């Protein structure tokens, strides 16, 4: 096994500069165990997939499909696309429900347990731990996705696509990590996330969404650099690949507020529709990524609502988002691109339970939410629509990890050759199971569930092991059957552990052993916001404050 991987590495090194064709992508160990059993069938499936893709391109003027990739924040399983559960929640997502009737639901889509790692996994096809991006940053942090990661946008760019990213990115506050420097022709994105944008800005502090920040007399405060100022941090930046990057819609001294958040969200929606029209008018296929910041919205300031019987802060905004997606889908029809465009729509991780129940969402069918490695943290609503190519109103129960979309979409785009062969790629090609709606063609039956940099759980088909903590006996580890027990409430620990405990440990062992061949690397670090042309004075000061604190360890 190790030998085989070593040989593969050697081959990659020789041919790295050349076209990657015929050089296999390097995967994690479990993949090869399945491959050893299914290689012949997979080879046949690959031929059938290529035939189907060829036939599509022939119908489509020789071009691969456009791809629209929508990622919704903190949306657990069952909150989109199931009218019955809409009724249970007391809100409605009619446009998404109609969309889901035309799409395939990837029922067992696993994400990472929070925003940054999920986004990293989808963009790089790799577990975030591989480049130290498992953590979720809130304020100025001076690190991010390394420039030498090869994002899906870069892969598709190589495949001839025009690429645009609108909305949340959340993969770092240093220049090399930003979307315009990671393969997108045009980008409009906030550098940070909703912590700054809706949780600790001035209005939110007034409503006690955040406390201990400026809601008191700082009589005894000695450290003026300790607390972030949402308005001093960079807000939204825009830029083109290779061009200047500028902060938009913030004048020096201006305060970030709930109204600014609303304006930003509306602008992202408008920019998405504008980009869609521009991209559709061009000759090349396009990759449009829309990652809204809604439904997260933590203040009542500026609201007329409630808009739904539920009335929860996020539930209402989910309805808003649904209306916006409706506009997007309608615009696709108007532009005549609904038929030749793949739309992926999914949540990025489970509910933000810290804001339950006033958010309007609490976990239902699975236990836990964002940050948890129980199914509620990592299983989300996920759909893929491609008329005529992917079954309508279909369901696929294969285990799919969010990183698999990287490889699979690259395959659909005819750009698989541009997936790097010099590193371990966790995402496996699921195109056969998706195109033919056939779980037996899936290429993954396991997930290693990380929390930041530590494996916390292992999923292997219907079974799940919640790993024991450091120093804890393996006998105390809990096994669950996730079909029978979606809430992971009733352990079948000895019943499964008796025969499977060791084998589960070996899954982890192989995963770790493979890291010796393909070691994890740290994230990129640097000066925050470097390269933004119009930094405000208060932002410069905030950066200086960060640097003072960072350099303190060197004194």
């Amino acid at each position, binding site marked *: 096994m190790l030998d085989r991987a070593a040989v593969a590495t050697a081959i990659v090194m020789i041919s790295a500069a050349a076209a990657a064709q015929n050089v296999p992508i390097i995967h994690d160990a479990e993949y090869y165990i399945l491959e050893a059993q299914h290689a012949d069938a997979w080879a046949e499936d690959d031929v059938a997939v290529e035939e189907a893709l060829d036939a599509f391109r022939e119908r489509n003027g020789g071009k691969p499909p456009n791809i629209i990739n929508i990622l919704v924040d903190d949306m657990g399983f069952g909150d989109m696309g199931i*009218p019955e559960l809409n*009724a249970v929640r007391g809100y409605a997502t009619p446009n998404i429900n109609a969309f889901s009737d035309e799409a395939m639901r990837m029922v*067992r889509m696993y994400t990472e347990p929070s925003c940054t790692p999920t986004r990293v996994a989808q963009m790089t096809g790799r577990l975030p731990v591989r480049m130290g991006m498992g953590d979720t940053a809130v304020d100025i942090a001076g690190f991010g996705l390394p420039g030498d990661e090869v994002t899906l946008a870069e892969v598709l760019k190589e495949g001839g696509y025009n690429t645009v990213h609108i909305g949340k990115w959340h993969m770092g506050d240093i220049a090399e990590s930003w979307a315009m420097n990671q393969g997108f022709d045009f980008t409009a994105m906030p550098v940070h996330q909703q912590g700054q944008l809706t949780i600790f800005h001035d209005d939110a502090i007034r409503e006690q969404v955040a406390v201990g920040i400026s809601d008191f007399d700082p009589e005894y405060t000695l450290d003026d650099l300790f607390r972030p100022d949402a308005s001093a941090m960079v807000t939204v930046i825009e830029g083109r690949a290779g061009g200047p990057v500028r902060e938009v819609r913030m004048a020096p001294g201006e305060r970030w507020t709930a109204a600014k958040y609303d304006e930003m969200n509306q602008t992202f929606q408008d920019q998405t529709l504008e980009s869609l029209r521009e991209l559709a008018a061009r000759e090349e296929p396009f990759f449009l990524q829309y990652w809204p910041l809604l439904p997260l919205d933590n203040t009542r300031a500026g609201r007329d609502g409630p808009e739904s019987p539920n*009335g929860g802060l996020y539930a209402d905004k989910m309805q808003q988002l649904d209306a916006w997606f409706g506009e997007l889908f309608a615009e696709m029809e108007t532009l005549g691109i609904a038929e030749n465009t793949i739309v992926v729509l999914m949540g990025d991780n489970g509910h933000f339970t810290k804001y339950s129940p006033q958010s309007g969402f609490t976990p239902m*069918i699975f236990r836990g939410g964002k940050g948890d490695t129980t199914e509620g943290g990592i299983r989300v609503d996920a759909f893929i629509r491609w008329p005529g190519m992917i079954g309508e109103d279909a369901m696929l129960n294969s285990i799919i990890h969010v990183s698999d979309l990287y490889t699979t979409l690259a395959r659909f785009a005819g750009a698989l050759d541009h997936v790097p062969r010099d590193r371990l790629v966790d995402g496996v090609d699921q195109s056969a199971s998706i195109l033919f709606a056939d779980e037996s063609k899936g290429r993954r039956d396991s997930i290693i569930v990380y929390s930041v940099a530590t494996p916390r759980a292992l999923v292997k088909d219907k079974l799940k092991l919640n790993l024991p903590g450091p120093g804890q006996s393996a006998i105390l580890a809990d096994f669950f059957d996730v*079909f029978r027990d979606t809430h992971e409430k*009733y352990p079948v620990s000895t019943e499964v552990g008796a025969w499977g405990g060791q084998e589960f440990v070996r899954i982890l062992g192989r995963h770790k052993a493979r890291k010796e061949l393909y070691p994890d690397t740290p994230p990129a670090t640097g000066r925050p916001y470097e390269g933004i042309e119009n930094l405000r004075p208060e932002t410069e000061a905030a950066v200086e404050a960060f640097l003072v604190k960072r350099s303190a360890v060197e004194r």
Partner: protein
Amino acid sequence: MLRKLAIVVPVATFASLAAAEDADRIIHDAEYYVLEVIHGDMWEVEDEDLDTRLAELRELHGRPPNIIHVMWDDTPLGELGIPELQKIRGFETPAINQFAAEGINFMRMYTEPSCTPSRAAAMTGRHAVRNGMYNVGFPYEYGGLAADEVTVAEVLSEAGYATGFFGKSHLGDVESSYLSNQGFDEAIWTPYNQVPSLYVPQGQLAALSAGTLFPEMFGEDPYDIDPSWRPTGYVWALEGTKGGPVREFGTPPFDHGGYMALEDQFQDAAFDFIRRQAEADAPFFVAWWPQLTSFLGFPDRVTASGGFIQEALVRLDDRVAELDTLLEELGVEDNTLVVLMADNGPMVHNGPPGFVETLYAGGKGDYTEGGVRVPAMARWPGVIEPSQVVGDIIHITDLFTTFARLGGALDAIPRDRIIDGVDQTSLLLNGDTYSRRDYVTIYTGPILAALVKGRYKRHLVGAQPGLSGPEFYDLYNDPREDGGQMLPMFPAKGMFNQMKLRHQLWATRYPNTGQNRDLPFLGLEDPRPEVAAAGQFRVAPDRLPFDPYQFLQLQPEWENIDRRWSTAGN
């Protein structure tokens, strides 16, 4: 407590409530009248329209609609009729899902929290607490539904319906509870639940404790000097016809194969009944309440889940498909309302493996939503619009009143007691938002444990006496009742207080009664000796220094209606 309140609160309270009373009107729970005052005019207009539509249907078909009520055990809301969630669970019920798509899929059907109370509630249109049917019966229960309770079968019989019951009754082992004595023309029923499926030798090898039922299977226990207490004279099923004899049905217990055969036998009998009635002149009402499963499970596993209840549901699905085929064959589909539903949440406490929560927290026996919210669907081609997801509250007791309305039998509903079931004909025919109920009183046993009003819920059990704690829930925001709240929902406190008080005061005017307590299996034709022995005290009462009949009356706080022993010279 109640008595005290009744004294403190002036009688005027009753007088104001009594304004709505009228000898001709069905007596509902107090909360209903609040809604009636608000919506009564609109309901009247709706009712006129509904009457017209029902009359037209009656004209068209020459009879009121047939009604088939299929009810089974322990299935949480979300488990059926939502294919996405079945994928997650690793099983599929295509026929039931199709059924849901052809009619209404109710998202807020409330039941009582366990089998006996739910079944009694469906039968009588009354909360089980009103007639003492809140205890889950086991061999021997020495109790059951009292004779003067009026069942839906009795009501529909008055309107000329042929009535049949086939399956699990679980309404008791005393003679008054025999379904052929409770309005059914033809009935085959189990007096208990599925637990007796374990009361076989295999059960003792699997789940029963050593020697609890079959001491002879284990080494002799020289200290066991009273082996005669064991309930070995139970029956699996009984059969009878209205006014006719009642006999044991199927094979006598102890051969598990005989237990497993019952499910087919119930279905065959139900289908035979439907077939015969479809050709007769009268409309029919069938309660087909399958057993679902033995507690020993199925020998073969056919689902990815392999879970206990999931294995049972896919088999139920086949039976539902067969019912569809039958109705189509007979050409009565368009004049037949079919309701499919479960009787309560999953047996998450101390049950066999595989009974787990789906959407809601808790299960059988709990007052949380997981105990009392179940999958429920109604289909009536041409009358109920297809593909409806209904978010209104409906309660299992509502079926009683609604079936009576549809059958033209409202007049047969008794006017001397509270009928909790409200008429939901408008909800069936007009769909979402047309419910006549926004409240549920949730009892566990005889205890008022929780109140639901619209989206809000208050837990009464565990509340801090004299104060308020975080006992308020918003079921949209927090469907799993994870985080009780106090301050955000305090405005609802007074409302809940009033609701509880109204409910309790109204019950002092129409007091709760007890179930019938008696010796089991009396009046059977040709009983086996063991069964006959079950109907007698195992030692002669006159040789005891106390009166064993008194043990059968362990609900002394309520009047027992028809105690056999009250005339037995004790």
